[in-house]
């Protein structure tokens, strides 16, 4: 909606100077562009402030004492203390859970992207009877609350020996994130130009080779952006491990954070909570920034092709 109202908002007083004499289209586009730039820069900046503040706030609070957090939530910490980080690291066992989570999520994301892109590619580019049915079967997976399936899932997982196992959990994550990956990647594969795939076929590439050597590289920006969401989702996943990983040695980080959050409810260890949250945010942030660069270079690659 906001997009739609732009041009009128730009120049409310001038009765549509839209296409007066059409002197030079280029000039006019630049003129409009400049006004738009000022206006949109302000807007971009506002939004950036809106989202940066809370992150900063989380990090700052992890250095504060508990009463500072509650009584002066928006001030700077009186003194920088690392106590809460030590506490979070030890009480929430973050170190150990970190490793477990890294194993599960890296395997899970790899499988989700691999299988998801394969399914999405086939759905997007191979019309065959049942194509829509399979597509909607996957879309349907996005629409039902996970916690209603959790009890049957527990018994399935147990009989397949997937419970209390890190690779098992990764497999389950994969299954539950497939709908999301398939949904977005299907759209993405549809946007890719046909010409290159056709050329590959003409060159004698088989279906598999075309997928792996032609389509996947072209789909890199889409794969990466979906990969980022899947990583974050699986990193923060709480319900599935809560029920499926009852062995404390196999806990993931979300379970450790939950215990911090709960103890904060009762004993006000707010700084510990924020420290734990900060610690758990850092790896995702790093992964995100690294891959954000990849998306950008993917776009440059797109420009070259």
């Amino acid at each position, binding site marked *: 909606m906001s997009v739609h109202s732009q041009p009128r908002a730009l120049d409310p007083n001038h009765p549509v100077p839209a296409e007066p004499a059409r002197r030079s289209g280029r000039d006019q586009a630049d003129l409009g562009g400049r006004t738009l730039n000022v206006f949109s820069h302000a807007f971009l900046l506002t939004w950036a402030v809106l989202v940066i503040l809370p992150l900063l706030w989380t990090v700052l609070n992890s250095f504060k004492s*508990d009463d500072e957090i509650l009584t002066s939530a928006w001030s700077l910490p009186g003194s920088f203390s690392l106590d809460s980080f030590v506490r979070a690291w030890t009480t929430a066992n973050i170190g150990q859970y970190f490793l477990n989570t890294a194993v599960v999520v890296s395997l899970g994301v790899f499988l989700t992207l691999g299988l998801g892109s394969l399914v999405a590619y086939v759905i997007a580019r191979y019309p065959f009877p049942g194509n829509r049915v399979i597509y909607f079967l996957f879309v349907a997976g996005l629409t039902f609350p996970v916690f209603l399936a959790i009890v049957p899932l527990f018994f399935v997982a147990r009989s397949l020996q997937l419970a209390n196992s890190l690779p098992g959990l990764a497999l389950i994550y994969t299954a539950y994130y497939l709908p999301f990956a398939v949904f977005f990647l299907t759209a993405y594969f549809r946007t890719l130009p046909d010409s290159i795939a056709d050329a590959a076929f003409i060159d004698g590439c088989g279906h598999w080779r075309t997928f792996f050597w032609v389509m996947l590289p072209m789909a890199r920006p889409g794969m990466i952006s979906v990969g980022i969401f899947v990583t974050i989702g699986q990193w923060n996943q709480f319900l599935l491990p809560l029920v499926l990983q009852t062995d404390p040695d196999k806990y993931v980080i979300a379970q450790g954070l939950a215990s911090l959050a709960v103890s904060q409810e009762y004993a006000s260890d707010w700084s510990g909570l924020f420290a734990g949250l900060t610690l758990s945010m850092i790896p995702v942030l790093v992964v995100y920034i690294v891959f954000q660069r990849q998306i950008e270079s993917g776009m440059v690659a797109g420009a070259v092709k």
Partner: protein
Amino acid sequence: MTIRPSRGLDRRAFLRLSGTTAAAFAAGSLVSCGQANDADTPSGSGSTGAPSTEPDADNPLNVSADEPLETVIFKGGYGDQYVIDAQAIYTERFPNAEIKHQGGQELGKQLQPRFISGDVPDLIDNSGAGNLPMAALVADGQLMDLTPLLDAPAIGADGKTVRETLIPGVVDLGSFGGTPHALYYAFVVHGIWHSRSLFEENGWPEPETWDDMLDLCAEIKSTGMSPWTYQGKNPGYILTPILMAAAKAGGLDVLKNIDNLEAGAWTAPPVMAAAEAFYQLVERDYILPGTSGMTHTQAQTYWATGEAAFIPCGSWLESELGDVTPDGFDMVVTTTPAVTSSDALPGTAIRGMGSEPYIVPSQAKNPMGGMELLRIMLSPESATNFTDQTQTLTSLADYEPTDVGSGLTSVREALAASGDDTFFWLYNQWYSELSASVNETTSLLMTGEINPDEWAQQCQSAADAVKDDDSVTKFQRD
């Protein structure tokens, strides 16, 4: 110093001597005494754990010495160290029993599949957010009757049964239709809190009647301070003093009628009087602006930092606030002021409530071991350990905590003053949907969106709906 007032002790001694089963305590249902006389024959009635040895003084519950024991404990504000400490004693007694222990949160979701498959722990502290719905478990026959434990001799109590060493009413709090299925290990009182130092400084008296309260509120407000706040997003907090005032005005029948889903229970005059009294806080603008949108931490922090004078809460308030409380704040709890000139209960009567409900699943492999651990936890030694760790009372009546803060002192005083008039209600544990809907209705009352009449009508129709709903298992108290 004892936790129970001596008056109560005398009374219980008297009851035991005379062998009466008189309706002595609040609920009037001292089921305990009648059955307590059978305590000498702890045959393990209702148990599924096959006793392997003859009962003896050291092992009244016939715990099989080699049977492993598994506990799942909610790890919240109280932690789970106190259970681990008790387990060490258990291990001394039964060195061959392997103990598996897990402390955690969201126990409901963790344990749900285990209940379905029958592979359950032997003792659960079913507390915290996301716990197991107790009434549903009872309706499904998933919980042991804890009578064997209650009738077993208590540790360090000169031949008294466990039941006799508990604060009166605790057994009833965990009973569903007269059968004890849960044992609340911790005991809290609910009331209205203020800062004694602040009140002394300003020469404000503790109000005895609601008129006093309103007068005092006017005075407090004139100083620029808000008289009241409450944990707005959890309206159950402000409902508590309303129901307390109603019970004090009309006597215990008020609460029994509510619990038993009687027609007209919520529209009864004492309930209306209490709702009208609290509605005056809204009408006269005595509530801190924005209260209805606050989380419990926000409201409590504002109260502790002097934005408001009164707040309702349970006795965990002091430990929950922690460092936020200023030095010398000196928080104290009182019961609700009288809302009528002819209140049925004494002015000191207060609401007592359990927390940390311990349950033993009926499918447990070692249910007697679970009860035995609970028996150990209810010894004076373990109870002292718990209170020292948590600044919270256990349900054990007589023991001597060594480390007592100002809040806990006032809780003990209030409980002692209330004595046998300590009361409670059960509908919120029995009927969670009714509880949810009454709480939400109360949030509207306290923002002035509805008046006390409408409030009572809406609560009553919610209660009637539960009563007419065949899919809800009903419980009765008398």
